[in-house]
């Protein structure tokens, strides 16, 4: 028999009995970050490929959501901070070793970039738009001459942002479930599939819808592949990581993970999309909505389960 107790008593709020310092804010922040990354990635990609008129929603329309998504995401992060009046300290330091610092800075870079991108396309929404001031018109013309270069920046920044939403977790070796670098590509994929789903929902063109249904299908395939590798890696590792994998393989998070993330968020939308591509009449919003829900749930479950997983000594 072995019994371990805190004989002095210990009940630090939010730390004991199990860590619960991150609530809904962090998963919402990461989901919105991933979604913004997904939308910007496709906008930049199809601009660079010269398909902006063919895939107009992706390149010109959907990016209008991004500044709002990012601001709400940053708002969620801000709400999470418990010492809010000092939040500006994030921007007086650059700490390359700290993923939180990376996130703050990449958002600082990508938010203005997304606003510039919207400015390029504002006449798609408001055909009579007039910038009024000469300076702004000149600035827009100047930036427009570098549009493709900006698209390249946006592409790279979107990938960094997408990967960051996973790396924020994997940098913590104290939480064995998170401590695997596969979360970087996995959450990038989750963000891309959410972005593709939003473009699909907004698009009016059949051709574009078809393309993004296909993209979603491929990305879901990649996600499933990465999830298998996540578990293979954890199960082949040390005891604490085996315990972490068990949270999803019989432990308290099994049902929510497999039902919401894998079945509802990946398998069912994939099946519906395959049927749709084969010509079946399926309301397109169902798979797209499920993908978004799955992506959000993925982050919630990972945030909570990760805090549950720990070293034992």
């Amino acid at each position, binding site marked *: 028999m072995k019994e371990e107790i805190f*004989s*002095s008593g210990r009940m630090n709020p939010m730390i004991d009995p199990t860590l619960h310092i991150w609530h809904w804010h962090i998963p919402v922040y990461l989901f919105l970050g991933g979604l913004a990354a997904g939308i910007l990635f496709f906008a930049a990609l199809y601009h660079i490929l010269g398909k902006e008129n063919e895939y107009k929603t992706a390149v010109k329309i959907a990016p209008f959501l991004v500044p709002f998504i990012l601001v709400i995401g940053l708002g969620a992060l801000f709400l999470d901070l418990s010492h809010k009046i000092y939040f500006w300290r994030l921007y007086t330091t650059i700490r390359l070793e700290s993923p*939180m610092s990376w996130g703050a800075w990449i958002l600082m870079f990508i938010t203005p970039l997304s606003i510039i991108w919207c400015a390029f396309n504002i006449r798609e929404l408001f055909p009579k738009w007039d910038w009024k001031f000469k300076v702004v018109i000149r600035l827009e013309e100047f930036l427009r001459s570098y549009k493709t270069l900006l698209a390249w920046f946006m592409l790279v920044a979107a990938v960094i942002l997408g990967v960051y939403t996973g790396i924020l977790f994997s940098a913590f070796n104290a939480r064995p479930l998170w401590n695997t670098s596969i979360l970087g590509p996995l959450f990038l994929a989750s963000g891309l599939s959410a972005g593709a789903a939003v473009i699909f929902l907004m698009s009016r063109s059949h051709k574009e819808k078809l393309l993004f249904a296909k993209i979603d299908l491929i990305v879901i395939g990649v996600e499933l592949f990465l999830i298998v590798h996540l578990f293979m890696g954890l199960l082949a590792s040390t005891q604490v990581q085996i315990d972490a994998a068990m949270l999803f393989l019989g432990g308290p998070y099994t049902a929510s993970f497999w039902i919401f993330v894998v079945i509802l968020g990946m398998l069912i939308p994939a099946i519906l999309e395959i049927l749709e591509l084969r010509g079946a009449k399926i309301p397109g919003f169902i798979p797209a909505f499920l993908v978004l829900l799955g992506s959000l749930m993925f982050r919630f479950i990972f945030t909570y389960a990760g805090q549950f997983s720990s070293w034992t000594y």
Partner: protein
Amino acid sequence: MRYAMAIDTKKCVGCSDCVVACQTENNVPIGYCRDWIVEITEGVYPELRLENRSERCNHCESSPCVRCCPTGASHYAEGGVVLVTPEKCIGCGACITSCPYDARYPHPDGYVDKCTFCLHRVKDGLKPACVSVCPTKCMYFGDLDVPNSEISKILKIRKYKTLIPEAGTKPQLYFLE
């Protein structure tokens, strides 16, 4: 300079005096603690083995909390003591999540708080509150870089362990066995 602490698990009776001394000395908010006693009982009566450990922040030499902090609020001070500067801390919780020992907590005022090895006392030539109050004198504190300091000597002659060294944090709390 490398400050460290050694705790004799053979002498500790688990009285929790160190916990109360810390709460008093450091004005720890009610309901929180910076140090705590873990009592491990193994075996079946009457063959029992008991270990009492007075635990706190390990002032890790390679500390994930300092690495993860986006603002530099968590930092290494003199002698490798890990401290938090409240006026730099934004309360993001990254350091709390990154500590394998769950040694930190969010202070009700918003910033993150934890054991400081009583650096303010140590600078005045005193011992940390927990060390000086211990009725069994089971704790040793000092500079590992000084070969004949009390702590260097005790670590030379006694068998000891650190907690989860495999987490790669290089903890500086030594438990004498």
